[in-house]
């Protein structure tokens, strides 16, 4: 789907485009105005080739309240909290994952042909087999999607339960039979057996080299190298002992025999043979890479009739930790299927959010259809994006919404001309203002429902809110003109100001590109989205937090005495992507 302008994205402070990555210590204690000053000095360039890696929609970011900073996927680490099977939704303990591998050991199998879930189906014995077997039920695994069934590899089960046991038994029986059939010198080693042999071999190797049966394991002479060095200091050591100590750091050798896990090329399936088979069976019955990778049992399967059902791979549920202070940023509840979180520090709930929309006179906003793509069902219903005309002043309403329970003082800073090849002039008519505190959820709900009957649309609602608070009459809204230094509208927890943008001309850039194509190539395609008008805005939010005695004082260190309000300050870059400029 095409990108819908305008939208906003937020720069994570971990990028060196904004500032050096925050260190744990100085961010935790207090704020450094000098560091923030530094941020303001160097303007964030949204057209920088690396800017895309620093910009995220606000919903994708988390907030560490210990470090007081935004956190993006680059500055959090993920930690597996538990494993579970996506089919039977049972949790698998980590010891079982370590021991048995990351696949479900219950009767959860996926189709080796199409990866959908296999069902255990009952089949009654064939009639022509005679009465003796007719009443004995057998069970097969069947794919409800592509109709693959375990009959294709001639696999039937006596019971509908404990499929895993039955499969491993049948597989063992079949492979040993195959191995006995094959010539004894060209005995192909199975993957599972080879792996088991290799692990035991390597474990032996490790124990041989690292554990020299040293009785002084806790002494400083524990390592043979140390011992040898000290012995040589004092001179004199029998030749044999010296030789032995020199032998110690010998390199680990590799497996040499099949019993140690060595697997060499065997002639069992000669290439000519395989090509012959491929010719007769055709493409459809040759396995794809995806099918071969579906399970370890299918690694060597060249044809679809060699595919075994694949045990369901397990899923994980992960928590996210801040890389700087290691505290959990999100931590889901430890129960399979639960979507609740014990800890969830979303950036949306912690930093003021900016949004931008074109400034339209009042009468237009009420009747205009919504341009929010989230409310459009189909792509074709979306209005075609309007191109910005160069050198035509356009006004936008910039709304800052406060999710905090304290009122926040906001200062917005933006370069007078946007960075990048196309220089557009940007003026925020009122760059400093305060935004009121957020209330409980139901406050918002009540406020919006009580007014939605009179006017629809966001502009109407904010106007109605404004009339409620008594700051201005709704009738005067229609012919109001934006003024410098005055805020446009204000609701309980959001404030809107007017921004004027004079888009620059793309023409200057394009002629340069046309005249010197090589020069353009040298910049590595940097001119690709140069016609998108992107305005970097530095937001600085300041607020005061009432710190109750005994609360969070253990966590935080600050210089002020515990009773006094704690002054907090947060600065971050926001990029407003306004739209494309017509060329």
């Amino acid at each position, binding site marked *: 789907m095409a990108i819908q302008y305008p939208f906003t994205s937020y720069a994570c402070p971990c990028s060196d485009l904004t500032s050096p990555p925050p260190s744990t210590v100085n961010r935790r204690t207090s704020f450094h105005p000098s560091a923030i000053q530094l941020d303001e000095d160097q303007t964030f360039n949204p057209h920088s080739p690396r800017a895309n890696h620093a910009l995220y929609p606000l919903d994708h970011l988390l907030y560490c309240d210990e470090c007081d900073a935004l956190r993006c996927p680059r500055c959090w680490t993920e930690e597996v909290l538990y494993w579970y099977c*996506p089919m039977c939704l049972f949790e698998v303990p980590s010891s079982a994952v370590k021991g048995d591998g990351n696949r479900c050991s219950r009767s959860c199998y996926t189709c080796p042909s199409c990866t*959908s*879930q296999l069902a255990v189906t009952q089949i009654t014995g064939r009639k022509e087999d005679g009465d003796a077997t007719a009443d004995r039920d057998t069970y097969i695994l069947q794919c*409800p999607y592509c109709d693959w069934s375990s009959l294709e590899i001639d696999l039937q089960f006596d019971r509908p339960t404990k499929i895993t046991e039955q499969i491993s038994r049948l597989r063992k029986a079949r492979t040993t039979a195959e191995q006995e059939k094959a010539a004894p010198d060209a005995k192909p080693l199975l993957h599972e057996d080879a792996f088991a042999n290799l692990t035991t071999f390597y474990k032996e190797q490790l124990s041989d080299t690292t554990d020299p049966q040293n009785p002084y394991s806790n002494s400083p002479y524990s390592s043979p190298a140390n011992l040898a060095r000290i012995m040589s200091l004092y001179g004199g050591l029998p030749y044999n002992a010296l030789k032995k100590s020199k032998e110690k750091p010998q390199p680990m050798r590799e497996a040499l025999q099949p019993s140690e896990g060595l697997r060499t090329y065997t002639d069992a399936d000669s290439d000519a043979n395989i090509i012959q088979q491929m010719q007769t069976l055709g493409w459809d019955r040759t396995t794809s890479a995806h099918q071969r990778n579906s399970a370890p049992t299918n690694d060597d399967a060249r044809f679809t009739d060699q595919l075994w059902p694949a045990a369901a791979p397990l*899923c994980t549920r992960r928590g996210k930790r801040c890389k700087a202070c290691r505290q959990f940023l999100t931590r889901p509840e430890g129960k*399979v*299927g639960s*979507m609740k979180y014990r800890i969830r520090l979303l950036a949306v709930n912690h930093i003021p959010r900016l949004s931008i929309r074109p400034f339209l006179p009042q009468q237009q906003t009420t009747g205009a259809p919504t341009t929010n793509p989230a409310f459009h*069902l189909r792509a074709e219903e979306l209005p075609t994006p309007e191109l910005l005309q160069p050198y035509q002043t356009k006004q936008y309403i910039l709304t800052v919404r406060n999710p905090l329970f304290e009122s926040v003082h906001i200062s917005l800073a933006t370069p007078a001309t946007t960075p990048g090849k196309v220089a557009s002039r940007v003026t925020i008519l009122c760059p400093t203002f305060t935004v009121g505190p957020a209330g409980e959820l139901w406050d918002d709900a009540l406020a919006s429902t009580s007014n939605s009957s009179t006017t629809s649309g966001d502009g109407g609602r904010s106007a109605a809110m404004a009339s409620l608070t008594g700051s201005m009459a709704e009738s005067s809204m229609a012919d109001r003109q934006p003024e410098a230094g005055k805020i446009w509208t204000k609701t309980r927890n959001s404030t809107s100001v007017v921004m004027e943008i004079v888009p620059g001309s793309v023409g200057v850039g394009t002629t340069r590109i046309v005249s010197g194509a090589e020069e353009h190539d040298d910049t590595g395609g940097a001119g690709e989205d140069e016609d998108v008008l992107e305005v970097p805005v530095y937001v600085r939010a300041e607020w005061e937090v009432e710190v109750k005695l005994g609360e969070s004082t253990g966590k935080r260190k600050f210089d002020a005495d515990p009773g006094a309000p704690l002054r907090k300050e947060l600065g971050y870059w926001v990029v407003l992507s306004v739209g494309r400029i017509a060329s």
Partner: protein
Amino acid sequence: MSRSAPASRRTAKTEYIETDTGNKISRRAHIEGKQNIMLGGKTVIMSGVHLRGDLCRKPEPAADGEKEKTSVTAISIGRSTIIATNSIIRPPNRLHKGQMTYIPMRIGDNVFIGPNCHISSASISNHVHVGANSVLSSLCIIKEGSKVLPGTVVPPNMTIPAGRRWWGG
């Protein structure tokens, strides 16, 4: 399913019929077996949607000429769920004791089903988003908060765990 008379008779507003509990049903939706469909309230059924409430488990044959029970639920849809245009909601069927029976379908609260979908799931939990042109095959189970991306085919009997994004087909 109870329907109240439309609140207003203005021509521009008669696309949807609103029930007592705030369900909005398009006049252009095709609904069969009304008595077997339950809507939780504030649910929107858009135009062209097929709700096959007639496909339900046949009630036990009435004993001794008594009146048949007719209130069998075939489709139950929760609160604030949206079923977008031209989607087909068809209860799944299964061979049970040699007979083809229909299994009631449950769709939770706050579910969004995009346009042109074909839904035959056994259950769709709350807060599930199903993208446009998806096919949810017979008896699949979509757990809470999952998102099925547009154009996805979910095979029969599949379980999608809670909070997962699912695509392909």
